């Protein structure tokens, strides 16, 4: 229908009734965002009414213009009513499901129309598909229809066909191959508009393959007369040389000639082509530098000085887009080239000083000009001019201008950081802006501005602002502050102070590796440990909701609790404070029981408590109580820790103090290098661990056994960014406890290797390693035997608590208060092995608990296994039931049995015992007997 006719009708209507909101009505050219309140609201019902009235109008028109009915079918836009109907139907949908249903119906109709090869409706179909595609529904089935339209003869069909192709194309490769031929034909068409269409499509979608096929055609078109074709051919060439940079040299001389044109479209396209040539090819860039600089300067001069040109005028400036493109190309040409830079100095100065800065268009040019001045080898005078422009921008009220100024200052900082420093106060103000985009830019800029001299005041400003900043900005701000603090800390005290401030203001946003670093630093500063723990304690009193502050405080109290209480190493600046032991325990208890504390923190609390129980003997009863309450914890990790720590407190007083000794100084350089390399894959670090089983983790343990929370293990670990993996198997826990730098059990090889080494260390605490007491590994800790060739098939203790028990009875000094006795092999035959390990209550020297472990060395399982023992009269024996009477073959399982003996003549007569073991092998009874005389002395 003659869309023109409709239009004439529409224009008549317009003045009468047009209840629509025109986009430009409230338009104010200086204000980029038209005032919200001035905008007439665009209500849906209103617009729907108006659309239907318009549609009705169109229908009337359609009836009265029967003559056009023949043309209707041929015009791509004649089927507008049906497209309108579809849009109306879609807009009437109230739910997404309704919309989907409508779209599905439409798509089905279009598909059937396509399959019926209904030529009359194909353009309407494509138009509908475009709309459906825009709504985000699959429309790939329309692609072939587009190809058909492209192949047809008429311009309108081609037009919509190409448009559809560009929009709907998603399965690129296949369809592109089919379209290449049509494109080639259209590029050679006599109609300039059809050539333009083909160029446009090629410029938007062409692949490398097509680029090679069609480059000669495009090259030819670059030299035609028609400016419309020329400009499109130039942009098409950009796509071609991006896809196939080898073709660049073919285009450099035609590109140069484009710059001599008068038509702005050709110029802007030509300048962009030259810019891209510079990017892809050094040769082309040199060629252009030689041949084009003069031409570009002339273009710039012409548009600067040209009289009013209505077609290209924007706010009194002729074609700012061309300005900007030329300036950009000059930047590429002048970059690193003194001669060119000198040549363009004048014109840049002219643009920078003459362009009016009261309109957006002028500012856009100034912005680009400043960037060019910064990008080339400009004279110092010109640079001052540029920085001054930025200063003006920075104090502008318009946020857009301030944003670009900040953006530009970031680039200027590498050129002239002194000049940028002058604007520091203003920039710092921008960090506090209400606009997130400006804040973000300003923060990045401030980060670049920090140097050794201004680090302290800037950090103070930023930390002050941290207190009042938006929640969603705190994350960015915190990470930047932390990196400034870490990068520019010249003295440890300052670093610790600032970190404590950040932790207490925004501890929830601090990344794990940052507070890990703080702990490493504190560990390395013996003079400041007391100060640190006191400041952390003070900070904790004020803000106990910040996770990482809480964690660091817990760690420090655990490690340096006595410094807190005894005021060790008080600095002059410190205010005196009194903290009692129970205050310190209070902190830990409150953290442990606080509802929002996570498992990691709670685990840390438990460890800190264990440490305090040894640091503060008077509080140990209370600590024990707190730990005991967690024995029933539903969280496996906490339950396990609680049980194990409880057992340490109850039964292993003798080794506790050495177990919970202070962590050895954490190796700062190792940590830093690990942190730097933490981005590397864990695999590689694990590998290196395997190669060096006595690597970092071992070095840190220094042969001193100490419990360590998994976060600390993590701290020592290579995978610093991982959250601590809650360890759940006893094997893992062993590693945790022994402070092996491993967080997961996946690398069992590494785990057992270093685990063993640590174990060796552990054994070497009190006494020299006793070769006959090396615990034999269970299946869960493979490789012990390989690493410890001295291991005799002796005591077998698998569970960790047992292991500790074993250690408790083994690794003692003879003169220690409560002697610990080594395990023994009580009995061994070719078929059976019995090992005993011993524990003693310190206050009851006569009483010994013996854990007997039975192991089947034969290849057949034993059933009905019974162990009996007889002792001399001066000894009382109490046998507990065994845990099983079935003993699997080949040492694959074991029976344990505990019995208590009371030596009434303790100290005078040694223990002696006769044993009898009865069992069945494939229903045949067997009996073994023996006497045990090798009990360790002192039982």
């Amino acid at each position, binding site marked *: 229908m*003659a869309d*023109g006719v409709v239009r004439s009708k529409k224009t008549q209507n*317009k003045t009468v009734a*047009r209840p629509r*909101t025109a*986009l*430009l009505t*409230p338009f104010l*050219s200086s204000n980029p*965002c038209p005032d919200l309140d001035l905008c007439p609201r*665009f209500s849906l019902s209103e*617009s729907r009414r*108006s659309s239907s009235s*318009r549609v009705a109008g169109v229908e009337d028109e359609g009836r009265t213009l029967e003559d056009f009915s023949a043309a209707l079918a041929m*015009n791509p836009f004649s089927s507008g009513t049906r497209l309108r109907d579809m*849009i109306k139907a879609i807009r009437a949908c109230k739910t997404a499901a309704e919309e989907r249903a409508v779209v599905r119906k439409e798509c089905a109709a279009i598909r059937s129309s396509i399959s019926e090869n209904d030529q009359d409706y194909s353009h309407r179909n494509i138009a509908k598909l*475009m*709309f459906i595609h*825009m709504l*985000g*529904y*699959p429309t790939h089935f329309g692609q072939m229809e587009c190809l058909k339209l492209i192949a047809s003869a008429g*311009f*309108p069909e081609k037009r919509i066909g190409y*448009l559809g192709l560009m929009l709907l194309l*998603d399965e*690129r*490769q296949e369809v592109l191959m089919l379209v290449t031929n049509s494109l080639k034909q259209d590029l050679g068409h006599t109609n300039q*508009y059809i050539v*333009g269409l083909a160029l*446009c499509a090629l410029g*938007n979608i062409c692949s*490398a393959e097509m680029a090679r096929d069609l480059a000669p055609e495009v090259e030819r078109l670059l030299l035609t007369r028609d400016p*419309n074709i020329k400009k*499109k051919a130039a*942009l*098409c060439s*950009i*796509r071609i040389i*991006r*896809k196939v940079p080898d073709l660049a040299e073919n285009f450099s001389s035609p590109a140069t000639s484009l710059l001599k044109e008068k038509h*702005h*479209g050709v110029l802007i*396209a030509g300048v962009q082509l030259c810019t891209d040539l510079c990017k892809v090819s050094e040769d082309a860039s040199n060629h252009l530098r030689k041949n084009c600089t003069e031409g570009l300067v002339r273009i710039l001069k012409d548009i600067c000085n040209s009289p009013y040109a209505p077609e*290209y005028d924007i706010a009194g400036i002729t*074609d*700012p887009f061309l300005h900007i493109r030329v300036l950009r190309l000059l930047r590429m040409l002048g970059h690193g080239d003194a001669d060119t830079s000198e040549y363009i100095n004048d014109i840049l100065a002219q643009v920078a000083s003459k362009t009016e800065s009261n309109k*957006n*268009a002028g500012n856009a040019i100034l912005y*680009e000009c400043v960037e060019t001045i910064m990008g080339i080898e400009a004279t110092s005078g010109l640079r001052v001019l540029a920085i001054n422009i930025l200063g003006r921008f920075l104090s502008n009220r*318009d*946020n*857009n*201008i301030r*944003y*670009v100024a900040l*953006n530009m200052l970031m680039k200027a900082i590498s050129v002239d950081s002194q000049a940028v420093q002058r604007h520091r106060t203003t920039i710092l103000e921008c960090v506090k802006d209400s*606009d997130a*985009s*400006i804040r973000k830019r300003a923060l990045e800029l401030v980060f670049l501005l920090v140097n050794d001299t201004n680090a302290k005041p800037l950090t103070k400003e930023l930390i002050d602002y941290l207190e009042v900043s938006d929640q969603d900005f705190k994350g960015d701000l915190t990470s930047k502050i932390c990196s400034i603090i870490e990068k520019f800390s010249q003295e440890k005290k300052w670093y610790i102070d600032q970190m404590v401030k950040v932790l207490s203001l925004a501890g929830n946003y601090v990344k794990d590796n940052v507070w890990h670093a703080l702990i490493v630093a504190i560990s390395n500063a013996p003079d400041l440990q007391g100060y640190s723990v006191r400041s952390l304690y003070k900070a904790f009193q004020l803000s106990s909701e910040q996770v990482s502050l809480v964690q660091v405080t817990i760690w420090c109290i655990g490690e340096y609790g006595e410094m807190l209480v005894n005021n060790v190493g008080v600095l002059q600046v410190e205010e005196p404070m009194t903290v009692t032991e129970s205050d310190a325990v209070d902190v830990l208890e409150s953290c442990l029981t606080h509802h929002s504390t996570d498992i990691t923190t709670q685990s840390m609390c438990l460890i800190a408590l264990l440490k305090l129980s040894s640091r503060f003997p008077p509080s140990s009863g209370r600590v024990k109580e707190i730990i005991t309450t967690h024995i029933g914890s539903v969280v496996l990790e906490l339950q396990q820790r609680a049980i194990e720590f409880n057992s340490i407190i109850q039964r292993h007083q003798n080794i506790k103090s050495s177990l919970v000794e202070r962590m050895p100084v954490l190796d700062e350089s190792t940590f830093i290098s690990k942190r730097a390399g933490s981005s590397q894959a864990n695999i590689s670090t694990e590998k290196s661990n395997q190669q060096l089983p006595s690597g970092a983790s071992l070095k840190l343990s220094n042969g001193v056994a100490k419990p360590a929370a998994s976060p600390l293990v993590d701290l020592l670990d290579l995978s610093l960014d991982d959250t601590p993996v809650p360890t759940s198997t006893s094997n893992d826990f062993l590693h945790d406890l022994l402070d092996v730098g491993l967080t997961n059990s996946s690398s069992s090889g590494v785990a057992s290797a270093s685990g063993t080494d640590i174990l060796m260390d552990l054994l070497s605490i009190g006494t020299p390693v006793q070769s006959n007491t090396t615990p034999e590994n269970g299946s869960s800790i493979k490789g012990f035997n390989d690493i410890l060739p001295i291991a005799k098939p002796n005591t077998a203790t698998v569970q960790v608590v047992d292991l500790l028990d074993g250690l408790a009875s083994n690794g003692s000094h003879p003169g220690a208060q409560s002697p610990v006795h080594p395990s023994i092999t009580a009995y061994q035959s070719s078929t059976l092995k019995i090992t005993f390990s011993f524990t003693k209550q310190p206050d009851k020297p006569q009483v010994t608990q013996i854990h007997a472990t039975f192991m089947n060395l034969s290849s057949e399982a034993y059933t009905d296994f019974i162990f009996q023992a007889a002792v001399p009269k001066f000894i009382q024996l109490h046998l507990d039931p065994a845990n099983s009477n079935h003993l699997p073959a080949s040492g694959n399982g074991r029976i344990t049995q505990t019995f208590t003996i009371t030596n009434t003549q303790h100290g005078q007569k040694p223990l002696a015992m006769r044993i009898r073991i009865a069992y069945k092998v494939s229903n045949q009874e067997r009996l073994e007997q023996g006497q045990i005389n090798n009990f360790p002395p002192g039982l």
Partner: protein
Amino acid sequence: MLGGQLISVLRREIVEEGDEKGVNSMGIRFVLLVNKQGQTRLAQYYAEHLTLDERRALEGEIVRKCLARTEQQCSFVEHRNYKIVYRRYASLFFLVGVDNDENELAILEFIHLFVETMDRHFGNVCELDIMFHLEKAHFMLEEMVMNGCIVETSKSNILAPIQLMEKAS
């Protein structure tokens, strides 16, 4: 199924190829028109190979980000690895995704030129004009931007082919 996989593999290859050749370092990445309710009214992507799901997600993210901003805030939003320059006209938001080194102020000016061009053609252009004449809006955009580069800035030059076509039919 297999076809789908093949296609996605191919697409990935194309994207990688594009990245290698630096196709992604181009001025305009997409032009998006969205109304106040967040419904897309026009979408044109340049050298962005997005699946429908990716596109929906992207548009959703951008629209959420931009529409939430007040008008005192600046017209630039950083999103993923590019910037969005946006401008509001009555009920319509014009969002243009550009590379980080693009001149943001010039893009603002470009948006305005686009609106003025449509206004000249439709006469007091409004959201409905763009909806019902989606293809014409696309034709204009096509005359103005090719492969992410601005190709024509004169309104009459942009509209000439469209008017010719209307006269012809």
